[in-house]
């Protein structure tokens, strides 16, 4: 095999070592550091981004929980307020009704009292008028000496007059 021809061993070994050394030195100096650094930076960046995302997620979850609990609290509060308002309204309604009832009772009472008073007054008036009329009639009958027919006619006229006055609704003035 030509590979076992030791004639070329020395030159191959020499140039292999030289080439490898040059390659190693150049890569070591100029190629590996930036590439490795870029790799590590990227790894770090990715890790940081993931951590940050996780943190943000946690914060968002916390906030959501806060909001939810706040929302629940607000709903409960609203319900309480509503209930209270309803109760108050009912109370107001009841009070009003009672007040109105009392008022109307009072008015009715007063009205009936008034009516009663008026009725009594009217009765007294009537009585007084009747007495006046009787007196008037008697006076007329007495003041004139007339025939029996005349007397009867006067009396009837007087009574008619009185009646006419009553029919008109107003008591006759004396």
């Amino acid at each position, binding site marked *: 095999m030509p590979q076992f021809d030791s004639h070329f061993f020395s*030159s191959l070994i020499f140039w292999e070592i030289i*080439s490898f050394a040059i*390659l190693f030195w*150049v*890569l070591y100096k100029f190629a590996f550091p*930036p590439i490795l650094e870029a790799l590590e930076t990227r790894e770090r960046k990715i890790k940081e981004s993931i951590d940050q995302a996780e943190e943000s997620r946690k914060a968002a979850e916390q906030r959501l929980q806060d909001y939810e609990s706040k929302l629940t609290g607000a709903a409960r509060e609203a319900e309480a307020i509503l209930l209270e308002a309803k109760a108050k309204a009912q109370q107001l309604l009841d009070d009003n009704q009672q007040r109105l009832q009392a008022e109307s009772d009072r008015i009715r009472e007063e009205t009936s009292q008034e009516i009663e008073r008026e009725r009594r007054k009217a009765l007294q008036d009537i009585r007084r008028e009747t007495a006046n009329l009787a007196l008037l009639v008697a006076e007329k009958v007495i003041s004139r000496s007339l025939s029996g027919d005349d007397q009867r006619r006067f009396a009837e006229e007087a009574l008619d007059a009185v009646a006419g006055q009553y029919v008109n609704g107003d008591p006759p003035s004396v």
Partner: protein
Amino acid sequence: MDDPLHPFELHALIPLSLFGLDISINKAVLTMWVVVAVVVGLLWRAGSQAGLVPTKLQSLAELLIDFIRGIIHDTMGKDGMRFFPLISTLFLFILFSNLLGLIPGSYTVTSQIIVTGVFAVGVYVLSLVVGFKLHGAKFFGILVPPGTPGWLLPLMVPIELISQLARPISLAVRLFANMTAGHVILGVLFGLAISGGLLIGWLPFSFTIALYGLEVGIAFIQAYIFTILTCVYMGDAMHLH
């Protein structure tokens, strides 16, 4: 038909000598320089434009480098990253030697036993140096597998010694033999295709194409195996059982 080993022959193109040592430039040496130039060009450019958002070239370089980093982490642990530049240079050199050798007309540097041998011995000697530096005389314990009963020592130590010495040899021969065999088979099949003519030659020719694809895979796999075994030997030296 040509001798299938003919492509592996070397001829001094530019005769040179240094202190009586023959360092003539031949095709293998030229290919090494091309390998160095390609790797440097690729990685230097990738490194010079390295940014947070990678370019295409940077992605390729990062793929290779991350691959080697993964091997080192898996076999040597985090403190193995000290050897990252050396091991990745080794990987890139072998990988691109294998790949460039597949270009018709070029030369496969790694099909030279002396080239793979220098790498294998170098790696093995380095692992010994690291082992003795880290553990001192205790490093001889590598010859005694854990849990060996005392009376088995006379048997186990020679066996372990042989297995240790076989490491650089197997490392060198594996790469050299795989590269040589692949190219020999490609050469033989292609020779058949040429001499078979159109009538029958298409059969070995299609085999040539299929095998060529396989050889590209082997170029990667052999570079990977050489690298991972290097890491395993170094890891053994660093972390004595």
